């Protein structure tokens, strides 16, 4: 069994009104920032998968991403490998 660390990045589908992104755009003036547009707010999940190999781990995280972490009607996701889970990460989770 090996451990693999992933991030799942979920964003609103292109074309779907994202009121959070709009609210951020609306506040840019207060920060004195200009020239920023098309703000889209999503969500990111980081997780460790225990599996026999990378392909098996990837299959699990893809299923989790498509069935629970995102809704295919309104969101898109991308799975990102952030390296094999280090013992430091596992220990950190355990202590938390």
């Amino acid at each position, binding site marked *: 069994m090996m451990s693999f660390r992933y991030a799942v990045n979920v964003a609103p589908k292109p074309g779907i009104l994202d*009121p*959070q992104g709009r609210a951020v755009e609306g506040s840019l003036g207060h920060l004195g920032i200009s020239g920023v547009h098309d703000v889209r707010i999503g969500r990111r999940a980081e997780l460790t998968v225990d599996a026999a190999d990378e392909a098996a781990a990837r299959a699990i995280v893809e299923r989790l991403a498509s069935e*629970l*972490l995102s*809704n295919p*009607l309104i969101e898109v996701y991308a799975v990102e490998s952030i390296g094999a889970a280090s013992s430091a990460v596992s220990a950190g989770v355990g202590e938390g």
Partner: protein
Amino acid sequence: MGVRIGVVVFPGSNCDRDTVHALGLAGAEPVVLWHEQASLEGVAAVVLPGGFAYGDYVRAGVIARFSPVMRAVAGFATEGGLVLGICNGFQVLAEAGLVPGALLRNASLRFVGREVAIAAERRDTPFTHALDARRPLRMPVAHGEGRFYADDMTLDALERDGQVLFRYVDTWGEPAGPDDPANPNGSLRAIAGVLNAAGNVAGLMPHPERAAESILGSDEGMGIVRSLVESAARAAHGPVVAGSAVAGSAVQ
């Protein structure tokens, strides 16, 4: 005793007692179903009440969708069983794919808790047949994620196939566009409630169970509750789908 109708309780449900009360007023025998149970105890219909199931974590309704009771509800719905989702219950049904569309964050980004007016697009369904006329019904909404969304092709199909069940309407009874204050959340095409293709599963964001008695400000939600209870009583003797409720009424 009246017909037995299940009310599912998830951790975080908070309209279950109101729903039980309203069903009782309509003559049903409510049966409380816990989210961890896999049996629906032979009820004739199921209501998924409002609240914040599992804290609405990740997306409203998505964690609840995978609970044991929802597996049973999905099977029940597939077999033609009557299921009504109210507010958070609607979100659960949408996440489970048992009704079309999705409920997004309100366009205003604010939680909206106030009275709205909705009109039933159809009065020949198990959920609306007891409504006495095509007049607006006043009842509260209370949600942060209620903006109905589906892509244009799906919206066209829903309208064509009679799957739009309720719309938010303005003072004149006309559908309230996404920017109209009478549309509390920016729902596309003013959609407040939808039906599945088979006509036995419905969801709506407004709360008919909170408009169950005039002392509460409105009893105009009871037409929906009574429709469900009467349809469930009939369903106890065989499957009921949209359209057949009208046939049933005609022979009575």
